[in-house]
């Protein structure tokens, strides 16, 4: 009798040890389903983001206040030197302003001469960043604006300094924005005054790499990288960043490279380009 009891106890202990195996198998099955882009998985993700994004947003508030206080203190310490720098910069900008006004006049005259038809006006709105996902698979953020506010898939998202990413998923009141530095991001760009066409590729770091560079093209450190307008998702000329390193690989540092901004400006240029093909395939 006692023997049977101990045997049962041992079996129970062994079963308890092996209990994770079904869960491991289930995880693998879910992983396969998830990577094959099933609609049900997308729905689950969308619904749960709708629920959890506000919670993360509330949790992040003390952090944002803390960061604000540190930034204020830093500004106070650097007030004098920053003021001096700004005065210098203002002088330079005034001369740039004169030049810009002259160029704007010239451009207007030229446009009249060649009967140029401008791009349709873009629509924009500002949305708050609710949460961030920094997984090894993608770098994205959830913003507090969705279809009801007029956000649509493919819209460009700008931080304070430049292009931050693009809207990849929209729900009623939230949307997911994938960052330009994310793994899945590929941007057709042009580099420098020569307008060398290539692709800016994200690798989840803070930098972008330039790939598909034409043979013989000369790219130098400091060259400005802008969207080329190919693929029809972004209009041409949006600032991406500056070439930072030229070696075996050419990397560029995005203008928007100081972490996640608190707000993003979402701009709809009325372009959908290759994203239309993606939609049709689905």
């Amino acid at each position, binding site marked *: 009798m006692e023997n049977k009891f101990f045997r049962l106890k041992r079996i129970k202990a062994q079963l308890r040890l092996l209990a994770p195996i079904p*869960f491991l198998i289930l*995880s693998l099955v*879910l992983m396969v389903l998830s990577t094959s882009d099933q609609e049900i*998985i997308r729905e689950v993700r969308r619904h749960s983001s709708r629920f959890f994004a506000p919670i993360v947003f509330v949790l992040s508030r003390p*952090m944002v206040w803390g960061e604000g206080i540190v930034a204020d203190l830093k500004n106070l310490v650097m007030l004098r030197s920053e003021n001096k720098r700004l005065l210098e910069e203002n002088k330079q900008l005034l001369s740039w302003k004169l030049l810009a006004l002259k160029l704007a006049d010239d451009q207007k005259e030229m446009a009249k001469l060649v009967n140029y038809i401008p791009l349709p006006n873009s629509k924009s709105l500002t949305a708050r960043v609710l949460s961030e996902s920094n997984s*090894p*698979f993608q770098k994205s953020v959830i913003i507090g604006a969705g279809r009801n506010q007029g956000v649509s898939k493919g819209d460009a998202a700008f931080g304070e300094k430049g292009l931050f990413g693009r809207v990849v998923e929209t729900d009623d009141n939230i949307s997911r924005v994938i960052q330009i530095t994310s793994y899945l991001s590929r941007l057709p760009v042009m580099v420098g005054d020569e307008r060398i066409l290539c692709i800016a590729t994200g690798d*989840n770091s803070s930098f972008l790499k330039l790939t598909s560079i034409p043979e013989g093209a000369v790219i130098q450190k400091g060259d400005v990288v802008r969207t080329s307008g190919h693929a029809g998702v972004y209009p041409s000329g949006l600032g991406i960043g500056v070439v930072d390193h030229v070696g075996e690989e050419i990397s560029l540092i995005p203008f928007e490279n100081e972490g996640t901004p608190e707000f993003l400006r979402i701009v709809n240029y009325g372009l959908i380009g290759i994203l239309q093909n993606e939609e049709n395939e689905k």
Partner: protein
Amino acid sequence: MTSSVSTHRIFYLLSPFSLCVFLVLLTGIPIRSASFCLFCIPFVYTVIYYFAIFRPIVLNVGLVFLIGLFSDILTGSPIGFNSFLMTLLFFMTNLNRRILGNASFLGQWVGFGLNVSVIFFVSFILIALISRHGIVVSKTFFDYFFVILSYPIMAYVCGFLNKRIGEFV
């Protein structure tokens, strides 16, 4: 009086799970400093490891699986990715529970380092298989070392909770 004890009991019994959920939620906080993301580090591994040794019934495999799913949803990883890694960590730790439970603090720390090494290695392979790209090695190593270095602090927090749970179980 009885209701207060029962509330306390529920609170402490749920505390390992709640701590894990909280730590996962922290990974979703938008950080304005690009160079350093303290909350992106998977501290949740320490909690799973600790309770897999000392209270595998309070933080059982089902709950660990749920925490993983929650993490997948929040971080935008393929669903099943983090739940697989966390369940695997629980499984490995639970298999060596007797040895780790009787080991000194240093032994447990080393055991944690070994288990987490396996988890990071498996995650490398899974990422390569799923997305067909590598990962930023520097960031992964930073996460890896930081999660191991932070073990004493996290183990202290878990130890405190474990002690309180012991009063009710």
